[in-house]
Structure formats: C-alpha cells, structure tokens
C-alpha cells in the first residue's frame, strides 16, 4: 500500500518526519483518517491524539493540544500548538493542567464570547490530554 510523508512539528521542535501508511487526525469537526492520495485540505485541529497506523497496526500515538494540518496527496504536515508522545504524558501533570484550564474557563465566564470559546477549547484539549494519559 502506498505511503505518504507525515510531519509533526511543534514550535519547539520537529517531532516526527517519516513515511507512514495511515494517520488518524483529531480534526475540529471529527476524527479524520488520512491515506496517501488524499485531496488537498487545510484543517484546524482540536486537542486529541494523532494515531499512526502501519501494516494494520497502530505504531505511534501522539497527543496534540490543537493546531492545524495541511494535507496534500503526498504529504501531511501537522502544526501542533503543543505535542507529546502519549507514552510520555503523566497523569498528575494532566490533572494539574485540567484544573488550570478549568480555572481559566471559570474566570473567562464574564469575558467576550471569543475569549470564552478559546478557554473552552483549551479546557477540552486538556481533558483530552487527561484521557490520553489515562489510556496510556
């Protein structure tokens, strides 16, 4: 089966750049499985795990806290706000950040709708991180 180039970059480093068979991306409007030859797209991401599949098995799981993905027939570039391999997530850390995001969200309750949405997205991303940490 044809492979494509998957690149995962966060502002702080290049996490992944190699040929893969399939990637499942947490797009803003639902999970998206990408195979080689996909139509060109630019999608926004929500917090969730990127799963890489090769030879019918899942070979890599990486948590992203939002960002964008650029999809072309031969290449997928994920620009993550923050990315960590799921195996390196710690549950205590995730709990702390969920609490932080919750506090920020509560504080933003009176703010403009845009800010509230941003805080909400952040909280959801952190909850996704907690789930991922628990599953690992």
């Amino acid at each position: 089966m044809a492979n494509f180039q998957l690149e995962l970059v966060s502002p702080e480093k290049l996490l992944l750049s190699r040929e893969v068979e399939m990637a499942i991306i947490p797009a803003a409007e639902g999970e998206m499985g990408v195979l080689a030859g996909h139509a060109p797209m630019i999608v926004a991401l929500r917090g969730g795990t990127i799963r890489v599949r090769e030879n019918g098995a899942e070979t890599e799981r990486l948590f992203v806290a939002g960002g964008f993905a650029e999809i072309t027939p031969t290449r997928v570039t994920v620009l993550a706000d923050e990315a960590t391999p799921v195996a390196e997530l710690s549950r205590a850390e995730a709990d702390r950040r969920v609490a932080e995001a919750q506090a920020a969200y509560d504080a933003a309750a009176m703010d403009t709708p845009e800010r509230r949405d941003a805080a909400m997205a952040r909280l959801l991303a952190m909850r996704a991180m907690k789930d991922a940490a628990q599953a690992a």
Partner: protein
Amino acid sequence: MPSLKSLRMRINSVKSTRKITQAMKMVAAAKLRRAQSQAEAARPYAVRMERMLASLGASVAGTPDAPKLLVGSGGDAVHLLVVVTADRGLAGPFNTNVGRFARARIRELEAQGKTVKLLTVGRKGAAYLKREFASRVVGEISFAGKKRLEFSDASEVAARITAMLEAGEFDVCALVYNRFRNVMTQVPTEQRLIPAPLPEAGSPADSGGALYEYEPTEEEILAQLLPQNLAIQVYRALLESAAGEQGSRMTAMDNATRNAGEMINKLTLNYNRTRQANITKELIEIISGAEAV
C-alpha cells in the same frame, strides 16, 4: 613609580578579572550552543506556517472584512515598535546596537509626523530607551531569571500585541531585534508584524495542482492561524536575539580575557623592572656606604 606592593595587588586583581571573563566566555559558549539548537528546532514550524499562510492569506487579503491581524487597521498614524534586547549586560555592543537602531527609527518616524509607542522586551532595552523616550513606552516585558525561553513566553508577548490591536492602540507594528548572522555578527533588524507581510504564494504544483479544501471555513482557520503566526514570529525573534546575546557575550569576553592577559604581561614586566631597580638602588647604597668608611 608605583610601589612593589601596589603592583602586586594590581596584578592579582587583573588575574582574578581574567578568571571571571574566561568563565563567562565558557558559559556563554555553552549557552550559545543551546540557544542555537533551540533556534534551529523552531525553524521547521515557522517554514511550514509560512507555507500555509501563503496559500490562505492570498485568498482572503483582498476581501473587505479581512482580519485585522492580516491587513492592519488601514491607518498609518501610530506605530508600535517591539524592541527585543537582552536582560543582562556585559555582552559587548549587543544591547546598545539595538537601542541605537531603535532610536534612529523612532526619530525617523516622528520626523514623518507619526506617533510612536514602544513595547520593550528585556530589561536592558527598557533602561536604554526610557532615558530618552519614557513617554512612549507603553509596556515592558522581561524574562529575566528564566532558564529557557519557551513558546508560551512568545505567545504572551503576541497576546499583548493582539490585545492592543483590538483596542485600536496602534496601526502598524514592527519588531526590532538583533538578527543572528553568526557568532561574531548580529545585525539589528526591523521586521514588520502587522499588517502581516504576505509570503509569496507557493507554486500550485505544491498542492498537487488543486486548491485546498478548508475545514472548518477559511475564515475560522485564518482567525486561529494568524495569532499563532504572530507568536511564532515573536518566538523566532526572541530565539535569534537570545542566540545573538550569547554570541556577542562570548566574543566580548574573549576580547576581555585577551586584554587582561596583555595587561598582566605589562604589569609583570613593570613589576620585575621595579624590583630590579630597587635591588640596584640598595646595592649602590651599600657600596657607597662601604666606600665612605
């Protein structure tokens, strides 16, 4: 002629100064390596962000309700300069260069009748610019005491800029920082942030000849992408400035160490001559004393 004791004391003091500058040079070299690798690690993201923005921005820039971050407020009256300097001194001309560059730029803008506002990042720049332009400084940010610059620090600066833009406090925003060319040279540079300079759209072959589909809409993605892009530009500038600071400090401390070495040689020569002169003087005194007897 200075006494032997005072010479000895000077030699010792210069020696300990040399020890300090040498240590600072080593520390700067180690930090430079780290800062450089951090700057390199940030590059792939910036490059890809640019590529994405090129394909997105070009299609939205022409529309009347294009986001402010992309096209600015339309005016050109109030300029915000974000001046990035180091938090510490003893880095050769590093901080002064940015300061001088910023000052020239402020003068130039004000001569054209524009209003200038300043946001300083780093303590040294704040101190330098406040002396002359205290009334223009609208904010100071400092990361003093931080071991490592993180992306969230840059996001903080970017959020501040965005908030000011939304409040209509400026029309045009530019970054002034030391661009890292190599260890020896850092070039003070001005880089425009808002309105965003659009990179040239890549060749359509890059996307397989077809246009992108967007999910959710183009506008929504752009609304998220632009603040992120602003943050990454700031992050890049902060990293380059941090690398430049260490490079400049390393060069400055290398020179200082060499100068201290020269100084020690000179003082030692002087010390030996004085010592010899003293001995000769004493001998003459003894001999002439003996002759008189």
